[in-house]
């Protein structure tokens, strides 16, 4: 490739990491950072052990347990009640010792959800490649890192070789312009995007988010957008690093310091997409298409503004799609034409790698302040990491939330997926700030509606979905 050809942010990071291009175009791509957790790593360690292999660069890995950790009571592995959860966590602790992998222990105040702590500790950096056996690894793209989820075989591949075999992906640009309306947050932006491009819209692509709406988001908001990239079918969702990014990274534990910082900064500034660079697909949106959103179906693309109604399957021509739509309505216990604001909820979950950052907890506390959780509603706030929790407590947010009747828990994936004690039960309706509303995701038979933190808090205090713009 000639130096003069304009390149996208993705092209630049990709090119800088190609170790070798194989005859058919597949690339051996160097991986700068690998994050591990307890759910998708045991079989990879097992594979290494069976083949007598070691980690090539253990210093570029970091492990943390998050999915199975209880959010209240004792958090020491041996006290985890469910046997298989305990075994997974204990297996991780055993494996990291045996293979010499850096590990953040559960009781360390830096422990938390892998995608929260990567950026928070300065592990996720612009211009780097970062992977994790978890689809929401796309989160780290908000910092201008080419970050994507991988399967367990690939986890093992990275451990043994510090590389991955990757076919080149296509470039997709999603451009959002305009000032966000009152009550709208990054979550509403990304839900609206997925609603528009559909859950398969990004398949085969790496997305780059551009436009003044995206640039105007703080880092937490950008991470929310990149996080849900995978729900639109793309593995990675990049945002060009800028001053907001640099200010966020500076001074974090593992970020470059001193002279290294200056060098890094000079390099990072060369990363944004060149004018005239080619995107295979482009999507343009304006903030006028974005309102406080609520999903109604069982994929994140089934989303309407909170003022909207449950769509009618009879309006769909394609027979297969119509049948799927009907099945969703049945599962979700909804009838076409119902107003979203008429739906009573049972559970509220504020947390996850999508919305478990300090900014999210602030947004929830702002709505909760001086109000009370509606009768019969269970509302959980679960900070994404120990550092987020400490910060929230230093700001007194825990007291505001507790006074309003929310539960204030310890960091973990919690109710984002049914792998730890926090679950919803069959038929319960949940307003959740997480990223997936698949059948059974939060517990067997549970009904999940994805919303922003402010919308979740509004639902908690009114007992039904409420338009946060009218809550003053």
């Amino acid at each position, binding site marked *: 490739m000639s130096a003069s050809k304009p390149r996208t942010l993705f092209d630049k990071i990709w090119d800088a990491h190609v*170790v070798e291009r194989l005859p*058919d175009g597949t690339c051996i791509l160097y991986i700068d950072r690998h994050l591990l957790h307890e759910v998708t790593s045991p*079989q990879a360690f097992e594979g290494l052990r069976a083949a007598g292999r070691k980690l090539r660069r253990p210093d570029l890995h970091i492990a943390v347990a998050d999915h199975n950790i209880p959010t209240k009571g004792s958090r020491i592995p041996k006290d985890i009640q469910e046997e298989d959860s305990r075994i997974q966590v204990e297996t991780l602790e055993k494996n990291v010792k045996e293979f010499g992998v850096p590990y953040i222990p559960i009781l360390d105040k830096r422990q938390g959800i892998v995608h929260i702590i990567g950026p928070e500790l300065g592990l996720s950096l612009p211009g780097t490649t970062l992977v994790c056996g978890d689809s929401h690894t796309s989160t780290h793209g908000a910092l201008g890192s080419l970050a994507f989820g*991988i399967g367990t075989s690939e986890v093992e591949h990275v451990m043994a*070789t510090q590389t991955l075999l990757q076919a080149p992906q296509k470039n997709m640009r999603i451009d959002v312009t305009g000032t966000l309306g009152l009550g709208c947050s990054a979550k509403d932006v990304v839900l609206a995007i997925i609603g528009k491009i559909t859950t398969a819209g990004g*398949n085969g692509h790496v997305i780059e988010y551009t436009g003044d709406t995206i640039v105007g988001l703080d880092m937490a908001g950008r991470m929310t957008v990149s996080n849900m990239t995978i729900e639109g079918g793309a593995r990675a969702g990049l945002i060009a690093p800028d001053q907001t990014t640099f200010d966020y990274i500076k001074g974090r534990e593992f970020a470059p310091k001193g002279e290294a910082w200056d060098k890094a900064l000079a390099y990072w500034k060369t990363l944004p997409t060149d004018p005239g660079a080619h995107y295979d697909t482009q999507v343009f949106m304006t903030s006028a298409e974005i309102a406080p959103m609520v999903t109604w179906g069982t994929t994140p693309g089934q989303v309407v503004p909170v003022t909207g109604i449950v769509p009618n399957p009879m309006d769909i021509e394609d027979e297969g799609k119509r049948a799927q739509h009907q099945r969703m309505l049945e599962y979700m216990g909804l009838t076409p034409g119902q107003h979203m604001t008429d739906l009573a909820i049972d559970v509220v979950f504020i947390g996850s790698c999508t919305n478990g950052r300090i900014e999210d907890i602030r947004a929830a506390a702002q709505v909760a302040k001086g109000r009370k959780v509606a009768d019969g509603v269970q509302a959980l706030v679960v900070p994404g990491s120990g550092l987020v929790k400490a910060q929230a407590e230093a700001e007194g947010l825990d007291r505001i939330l507790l006074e309003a009747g929310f539960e204030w828990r310890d960091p973990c994936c919690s109710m984002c997926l049914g*792998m730890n004690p926090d679950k919803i039960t069959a038929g319960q309706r949940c307003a959740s700030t997480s990223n997936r509303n698949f059948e*059974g995701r939060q517990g067997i*038979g549970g009904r999940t509606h994805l919303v922003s933190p402010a919308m979740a808090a509004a639902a908690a205090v009114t007992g039904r979905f409420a338009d946060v713009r009218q809550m003053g």
Partner: protein
Amino acid sequence: MEPFTKLTGIAAPLPMQNVDTDKIIPARFLKTIKRSGLGVHLFDPLRFNKDGSEKPEFVLNQEPYRKAEIIVAFENFGCGSSREHAPWALLDFGIRCIIAPDFADIFFNNSFKNGILPVRLPRAVCNQLIEDTKMGGNARITVDLERQVVVRPNGEEIPFEIDAFRKHLLLNGLDDIGQTLQHSTSIDSYEARQEQDRSWMPTTMTAA
């Protein structure tokens, strides 16, 4: 890994779009530290009632599809979570090939790495194949990777595309890691270059 060359087997119809990995294997079954034994939980929400009894209407609970080795489905198969437990569960059940108009990227990759062949064919062809599968025990479909064709029960051959490198690995049952390790010197020199060019890159902490 078991090589994939030519497979003739019973195909089960799963005419659904967006079959996500939570449906293929729900999160509560991920708490294993092994790759094997997940087949009993394959498609759990579709296949079993809450009390563990079978849902008779689900295709894999019906003869002859209990012995299916091929699944024919609709768009965006395998979307959602990156869990490799999904292909492990399919493989453990005995599925070696999935035919659909398109697949979610991570699932697509994961399938190859476990010796499962995902075949992309247009929706119209999938519709035909779904009709074929309804012929029950006579619904034997052949997937010939070497020649890159799917053979319908009536003998009609439908060509499909596949990346040459992946085909090579699958035909020979080669493990990716062994392949890549043959390029170790390239990785060494990349790292040496990187130490110069990107000297700002910090490493992480020391071992646990």
